[in-house]
């Protein structure tokens, strides 16, 4: 008789009781993960994928009501286990790796102790012994000086190092099953790539069964053996990775696949006239952050100066979409703030035939011609203003439309971003994230700008919404001939949309190239490393060679 699957969920239904009545989180869910197998569980926010993880770990909130089904670990039913028994299972037989290592590690306890405590708990080791073992575990996750890392506090380690500690902790007791909850989303591109490689290696070595939860179908397709797509609490489709991508059976799956940005599917607006004069020209733009307040200086504080951007020069042509990519802290958002007139800078910003030498030099025509859309749909709209007021503000401010035509223009703007006209009367909190971002885009385009700065406009949105917003943006751009400075960390997305791509690293512009030339040898090594780190779905590109060590 074949061994039972490590994890087998069958007919599992879970409700949350709320004041407004029960809400179904999971409905008749069934899935199985065998030893040595990785099952990718893909869904958007609210799909129930995380609830499933909590159900497996028997860590349900007080208002959770299980309506039926079974959850078995290597054939043992978990639902009937007592709390004490579950405590013995957690961390020993089922471990979990969390999304963000900076919050899942206790900031006041040394990394080594957090790793060792699970060994003390489940393997009964003495603390000193456990620390020794912990060092070995850390070494296995590729940490160069494990003994030193053991003594550090979380804030003294990088994101990648912390996630390695979390992973080492998860593997510490040789569990049968590990749950991964988006373990790379909080990490930078290159680090994420290394963590994924580490995961692949450890899975090989230990033969652990893994349930890998993610919103990113592209990413899952690279590491999982099989994929389950969850939507609205139900598994809509399940099967081997290749099969799902090649022949999705459900519309939802198809939409999800279509929404995954793929460089080979170009969405860009028509290319700009290469001979046209530059619309925007940055010349040697530098930004320094920091500097102590007067009184602090008086009492001897040294100003801590951080370089936000160093000597950046680039140009944007009319109608062009220039992608700016880089990891967090690379200076790409600083650049956006400079151009939007939110950040003091040194150097010169040229716009059409005028030059501006500082933030305060930007005049009304410049401010009208250059608009910005921000990352967080929640933060970019004033919660106390109706959509109508938000959209009418640029119209009134720049005197673009006679008062009598205001309402009509607002309806047009809403239509342009595919929102119904009655949204004009709504407040931002009555809109979804995607809808809010559309309003923000509409507000930017309301000014009839020549250049729109998009600062990570899609990264807070669900995958499917992301794609819609990106398409909408390009469409508007094509229609109005507006240029766009598109700042993102998503390489695949930018390769879909941009005419040219600028790569920033630690405040410097390291590379600038036509999108078509992304994969040529002329690229800067850092660009190449970034491209190599990004999973390109599905197996369209050859699996890149694993990277080792920290990014340059």
């Amino acid at each position: 008789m074949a061994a039972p699957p490590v994890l087998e969920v069958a007919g599992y239904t879970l409700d949350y009781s709320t004041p407004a009545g029960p809400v179904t989180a999971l409905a008749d869910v069934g899935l199985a993960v065998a030893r040595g197998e990785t099952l990718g569980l893909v869904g958007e926010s609210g799909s129930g994928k995380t609830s499933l993880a909590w159900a497996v770990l028997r860590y349900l909130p007080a208002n959770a009501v299980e309506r039926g089904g079974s959850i078995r670990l290597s054939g043992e039913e978990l639902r009937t286990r007592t709390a004490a028994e579950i405590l013995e299972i957690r961390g020993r037989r089922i471990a979990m790796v969390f999304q963000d290592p900076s919050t899942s590690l206790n900031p006041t306890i040394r990394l080594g102790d957090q790793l060792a405590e699970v060994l003390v708990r489940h393997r009964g080791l003495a603390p000193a012994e456990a620390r020794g073992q912990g060092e070995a575990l850390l070494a296995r996750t590729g940490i160069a000086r494990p003994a030193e890392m053991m003594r550090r506090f979380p804030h003294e380690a990088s994101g990648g190092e912390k996630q390695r500690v979390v992973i080492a902790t998860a593997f510490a007791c040789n569990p049968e099953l590990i749950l991964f909850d988006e373990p790379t989303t909080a990490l930078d591109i290159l680090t994420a790539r290394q963590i994924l490689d580490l995961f692949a290696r450890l899975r090989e070595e230990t033969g652990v069964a893994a349930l890998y939860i993610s919103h990113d179908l592209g990413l899952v397709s690279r590491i999982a053996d099989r994929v389950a797509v969850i939507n609205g609490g139900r598994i809509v489709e399940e099967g081997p990775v290749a099969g799902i991508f090649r022949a999705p059976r459900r519309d939802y799956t198809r939409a999800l696949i279509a929404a995954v940005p793929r460089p080979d599917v170009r969405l860009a607006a028509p290319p700009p006239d290469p001979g046209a004069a530059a619309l925007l020209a940055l010349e040697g733009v530098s930004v320094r952050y920091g500097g102590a307040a007067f009184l602090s200086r008086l009492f001897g504080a040294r100003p801590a100066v951080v370089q936000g951007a160093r000597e950046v020069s680039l140009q944007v042509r009319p109608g062009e979409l220039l992608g700016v990519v880089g990891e967090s802290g690379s200076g790409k958002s600083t650049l956006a703030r400079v151009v939007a007139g939110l950040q003091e800078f040194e150097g010169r910003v040229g716009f059409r035939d005028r030059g501006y030498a500082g933030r305060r030099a930007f005049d009304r025509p410049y401010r009208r011609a250059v608009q910005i859309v921000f990352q967080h749909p929640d933060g970019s709209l004033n919660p106390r203003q109706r959509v109508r007021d938000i959209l009418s503000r640029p119209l009134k401010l720049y005197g673009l439309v006679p008062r009598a035509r205001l309402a009509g223009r607002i309806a047009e703007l809403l239509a342009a971003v595919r929102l119904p006209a009655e949204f004009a009367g709504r407040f931002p909190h009555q809109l979804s994230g995607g809808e809010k971002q559309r309003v923000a885009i509409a507000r930017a385009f309301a000014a009839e700008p020549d250049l729109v700065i998009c600062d990570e406009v899609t990264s807070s949105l669900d995958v499917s919404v992301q794609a819609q917003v990106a398409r909408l943006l390009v469409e508007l751009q094509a229609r109005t001939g507006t240029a766009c400075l598109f700042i993102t960390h998503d390489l695949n997305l930018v390769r879909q949309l941009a005419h040219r791509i600028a790569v920033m690293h630690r405040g410097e512009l390291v590379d600038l190239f036509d999108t078509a030339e992304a994969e040529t040898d002329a690229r800067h090594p850092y660009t190449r490393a970034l491209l190599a780190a990004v999973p390109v779905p599905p197996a369209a590109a050859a699996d890149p060679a694993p990277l080792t060590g920290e990014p340059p």
Partner: protein
Amino acid sequence: MTPAYLLRRLGAIVVVLVIVSLTVFGITMVLPGNAAVMILGEWATPEQLAALEERLGLDRPVWAQYFDWVGGILAGDWGTSLRLQLPVAQVVGDAIANSALLAVTALVAVTLVAIPLGMLAAIRRGTGADLGIGLVAYVGTAMPEFVTATLLLVFLAGPSVALFPAGGFVAPGESVAGFLAHVALPAGTLALVMTAHIARQVRSEMTDVLGSDYVRAARLKGLREWTVIRRHALPNSLAPAVAVISLDVGYLLGGIIVVEEIFAWPGLGRLLIYALENRDLPVIQAITLVLALVYALSNLLSDLVIAALDPRVRYA
């Protein structure tokens, strides 16, 4: 924590004290009536008043009085109490020591009671214990000290019960038991209000900590609940608790005013009321400065404690 940081903080405290000194001096200068009137009371004749004013130096220009005062403080001479005719440093010094005994006792009591209560409420969130603690906390913070003190006086020091003396002061040097008996009610009054406040804050911090990702991670490691609380939750909610306590020192410094008056505790608060009633300006000024200094130092101290508790906090 660098010496430069400490120096900077101390410098900031000096700035604060200068501002307080100017404010207080300004306020005391426009106080109606003067000490001579209050000293001689209703039995004074105008010439007696004039003589006394001259003797007290109240007839000199304001700016001269200010610079004399500041200069005196810097030279260690805090002036002479107008009413008591004693050096301010001596009068205030005795009172500081007594108030410190009261305040520290209250703080220790609060720390020992409020923090465990707040944590208990957070851990047993939504249970009867939580509700009970919450209710007591709300009632405690809603009672002015003089009401609380009056109730304690009636119920614990009334003639029929007389569990504690109704007031007075015994130095711990004379008799530790006597000191504890006398300090119980005034410190209890102060502690009650602060306990209520701090327990609520600790509960809220602890609730946040218990809901944090790392506590969840610790639980999902299979750690026992007690270990989770002791190792993971407790240390992290202590730092905010310390911050709250240090903020409450400001409250405490106000609270002693009423409590000392009611329980005959010979400290700064009662001295202040006496000085205010008698327009004893040097004493008022000195007490205000001392209280401001204590408050500023307690904030600094709490920052140091927080830095010790939380490795993330490093002052440079």
